[in-house]
């Protein structure tokens, strides 16, 4: 018979009461009988890491190892398991040093993974399930007290200014929209002391930002643990810096084509304008968002402002120009340019008005970016009638030398309007067969809702934004949405609170991050997104090195390269252990480089 505890082990956890005995059973364990023990765990994983359970993949350890390219952000994670209550645990990272020099301590960012209550499907899905509450890990915080969790009542409270506000209330208790742009919700910039209770572990998340200028080699430092003023242990942190930088991502099927990484809902100027936020405040927040996007591999930001539905055209043009300049200043790829510009009737009485708007839009976009490699959109998830209007109006945008991107669905958009759509953002899980039809017409293909953002499981985003989509021959990632912001016109009726998962409705808040007045709060799902695109960049590097090796004509280099390409093609990206896949890509890249040197 499978006992309950055996069942729990099968599920990937063992209860904390067993932890002490497991420590005793490991006499050489580095943490001995001290007040805390640390367990290394894979940072990116589908395993839910909760306070009262020790996952079976947790390994008692006194070292953390990171392998990263020059300029890469790479996470590593561990659990702190207290053997006693600790009022104040301070974690302090040292600089890293090695034969190649040193990496300063500010390149080692430590955050705590905050578990809080979310709807019943939170780990898995973007669909709402607010009739159940489950504790799930999600937020990455420097100050764990930003969110207070009442385990007995299954409620969440957010510190707004100096007071905690209930943020897990049902819809009928919503009084007004939560203005995340102005409310004083602020995380610390560095890790604050943790409070630990015996029997409740905490997951720590360490992100190493390897400087682009770091020489290849191994760098070592440590993370000191100080409990109530006393050193209670040290974790060694070793970082292997690889002898290369990651390239910009290219498509799997053609190394010359950019793999575009875009997200919906990254611009805040429209809502700032509606809410009367001062321009300099809006700029500061938008800059913080752009920085966050670029640091998470979103290189092809969408210009979110449009000229339709704007009473003052000149003002709208000025605002759009400003947004584009901010994007350029931030460092986004501006060619091609993806724009929310609207290729659909927007209340105009006649075609001439539509054409005048498109003329203004194209002139504004092209003059700011200096080219016409521009994609604008049309009706979202259009039905048959709207697809027919869309294709009629697309004729003018095509004649103006720009292109159309739209959300597409099987049997509708390709069949009715395939000839005028240049970039199909296909709804649903990525599949090669969805791509083939569009590629037959020379169109690009991305996908969204496969799944939408919202689930907390970081492995979903690593896999689906990463190798699963890339190897299915897609041209990019274009998911919905960065976070569920306030609706520019309906926010008063909706009374939404981006921090509240219990407002009912068919969908949960879809948040890769949580917006605050000073930027965004990170999540483990957002880290999964970054790692997914990093996987694509590693695969791109592998293919680029393979192409170089093949071009040498030297048998050993050619064979080594082709073996790597064979491996990548045979990799089952839908089920593979992605941590292993990453290490294997690195191994192949280094082997190809060695073969070319010989």
């Amino acid at each position, binding site marked *: *018979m*499978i006992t*309950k505890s*055996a*069942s729990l*082990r*099968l*599920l*990937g956890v063992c209860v904390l009461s067993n932890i002490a005995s497991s420590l005793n059973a490991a006499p050489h364990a580095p943490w001995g009988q001290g007040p805390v023990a640390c367990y290394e765990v894979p940072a990116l994983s*589908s*395993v*839910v890491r909760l306070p009262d359970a020790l996952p079976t*993949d947790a390994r008692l350890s006194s070292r953390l*190892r990171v392998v990263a390219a020059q300029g890469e952000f790479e996470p590593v994670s561990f659990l702190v398991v207290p053997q006693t209550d600790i009022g104040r645990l301070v974690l302090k990272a040292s600089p890293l040093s090695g034969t190649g020099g040193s990496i300063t301590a500010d390149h080692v960012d430590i955050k705590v993974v905050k578990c809080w209550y979310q*709807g*019943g*499907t939170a*780990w*898995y*899905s973007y*669909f*709402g*399930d*607010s*009739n*159940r509450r*489950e504790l799930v890990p999600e937020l990455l915080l420097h100050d764990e007290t930003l969110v207070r969790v009442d385990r007995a009542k299954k409620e969440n409270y957010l510190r707004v200014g100096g007071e905690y506000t209930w943020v897990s209330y049902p819809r009928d208790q919503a009084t007004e929209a939560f203005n995340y742009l102005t409310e004083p919700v602020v995380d610390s910039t560095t890790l604050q002391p943790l409070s630990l209770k015996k029997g409740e572990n905490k997951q720590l998340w360490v992100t190493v930002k390897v400087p682009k200028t770091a020489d290849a*080699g*191994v760098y070592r430092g440590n993370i000191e643990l100080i409990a109530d003023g006393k050193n209670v242990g040290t974790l060694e942190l*070793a970082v*292997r810096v690889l002898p290369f930088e990651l390239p910009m991502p290219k498509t799997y099927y053609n190394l010359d084509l950019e793999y575009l990484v875009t997200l919906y809902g990254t611009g805040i100027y429209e809502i700032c304008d509606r809410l009367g936020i001062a321009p300099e405040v809006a700029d500061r927040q938008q800059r913080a968002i752009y920085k966050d996007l670029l640091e998470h591999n979103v290189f092809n930001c969408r210009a979110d402002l449009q000229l339709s539905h704007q009473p003052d055209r000149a003002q709208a043009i000025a605002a759009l120009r400003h947004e584009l300049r901010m994007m350029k200043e931030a460092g986004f790829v501006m060619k091609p340019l993806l724009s929310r510009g609207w290729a659909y009737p927007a209340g105009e009485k006649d075609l001439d008005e539509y054409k005048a708007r498109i003329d203004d839009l194209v002139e504004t976009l092209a003059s700011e970016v200096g080219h016409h490699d521009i994609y604008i959109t049309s009706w979202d*998830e259009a039905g048959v009638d709207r697809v027919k209007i869309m294709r009629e109006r697309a004729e003018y945008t095509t004649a103006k030398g720009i292109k159309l991107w739209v*959300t597409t*669905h099987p049997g509708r958009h390709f069949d009715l309007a395939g000839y005028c759509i240049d970039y199909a953002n296909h*709804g*649903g*899980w990525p599949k090669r067969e969805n791509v083939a039809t569009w590629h037959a017409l020379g169109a690009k293909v991305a996908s969204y*809702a*496969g*799944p*939408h953002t919202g*689930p907390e*499981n970081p*492995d*979903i985003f690593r*896999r689906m934004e990463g190798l699963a989509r890339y190897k299915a021959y897609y041209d990019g990632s274009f998911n919905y949405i960065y976070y569920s912001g306030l609706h520019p016109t309906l926010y008063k009726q909706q009374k939404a609170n981006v921090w509240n998962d219990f407002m009912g409705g*068919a969908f949960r808040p879809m948040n890769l991050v949580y917006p605050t007045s000073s930027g965004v709060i990170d999540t483990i799902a957002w880290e999964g997104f970054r790692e997914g695109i990093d996987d694509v960049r590693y695969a791109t590097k592998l293919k680029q090195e393979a192409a170089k090796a093949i071009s040498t004509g030297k048998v050993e280099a050619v064979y080594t390269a082709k*073996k790597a390409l*064979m*491996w990548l093609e045979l990799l089952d990206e*839908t*089920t*593979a*252990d992605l*941590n*292993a896949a990453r*290490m*294997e890509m*690195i*191994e192949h890249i280094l082997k190809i480089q060695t073969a070319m040197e010989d």
Partner: protein
Amino acid sequence: MRISTAMLLVAAAVGSVNADEVQDRKVYECRYMENAPYGVTAWAESEMVKTGTGKESRFVPYNSEAAKGLILDATALRDVSSAPELKGRETSFYMVYNSRGWYIYIDCREPQIQTYVDERKDIALEIFFSPGLERVSYYQMIVNQLASRVSHYDWGMPHRHYRSLKEHVRIESLPITTGFATFLFIPWECLYDRLPLDGDHWRFSLMRWGPSMTWGGKVHDTGNFGLIHFQPPSPSQRVEIEKRILRAAWFEFRATATAAANFWSDEELGDLDFYDGALKPLIDQYTALGESLGEPDGWDAETVKKGRPVLGDWMEFRYKVAELRTEFLMNKRFADSK
């Protein structure tokens, strides 16, 4: 059989479920049946269906406002617009389980069945279940009965503790004289780490589109789904289930280990350092353990106990290999920098 309040209370007492979970929920009692019917025809002609034993038909109309909102679901196309009369269009299901797996038979009465067939009109069934109550993924399938097409939605990511049902579940849909019928068989092998052997409750719901009705809650609304209570197996039935699982794990291990050994020991494509130093010793160790259990046909409760510690690694040997390989390559990256 309709489930009475008394039975609800019994179910709550038998399982380890929190009483709050059962209150106001529909609960279906899933019995153990060694010779369960297999396939639509066998079920349609079974005594259970003929006599209505175990029949569950407490479906209610799907909330029409909520149904309209489903148009925003970009991943699943549902026909929620057609709303024929409920009368005469009863939906019911039956379930049993045994040592092989979980059997579900769904009977959709449709007075105009011939018209549906002639005009190629379909009825879609949307099936949800989660093998447990907390901290567990859920599964979603949409079955188009006429087209006999099944769409699986994997809300978990494949790893050691979650696998898609796609390659495992067997589904058959057929038009029968009274409507459409669908049979599902879910073998325990794909849920081996979630087996309901202790009187467990699982969340379950079934929606029928055309007319729109539900057994519990809205789509993905796991908090309002009904519950399936699995009658605890007898000791001998339990051993039978666990023997089957262990056997499946052993042969899964052998197949996966052979493939892994062939690849990693290949002088051109593999890695002999990895094979000799990490993989082969583990394969040898697990093989020896398996062989020490004797012939699978002779396994008993004691064998099950001996095999239990390696069951997960055997069943998921490809992930075990990946873990070994990750560790091997990580060590290699740091090997020259002690």
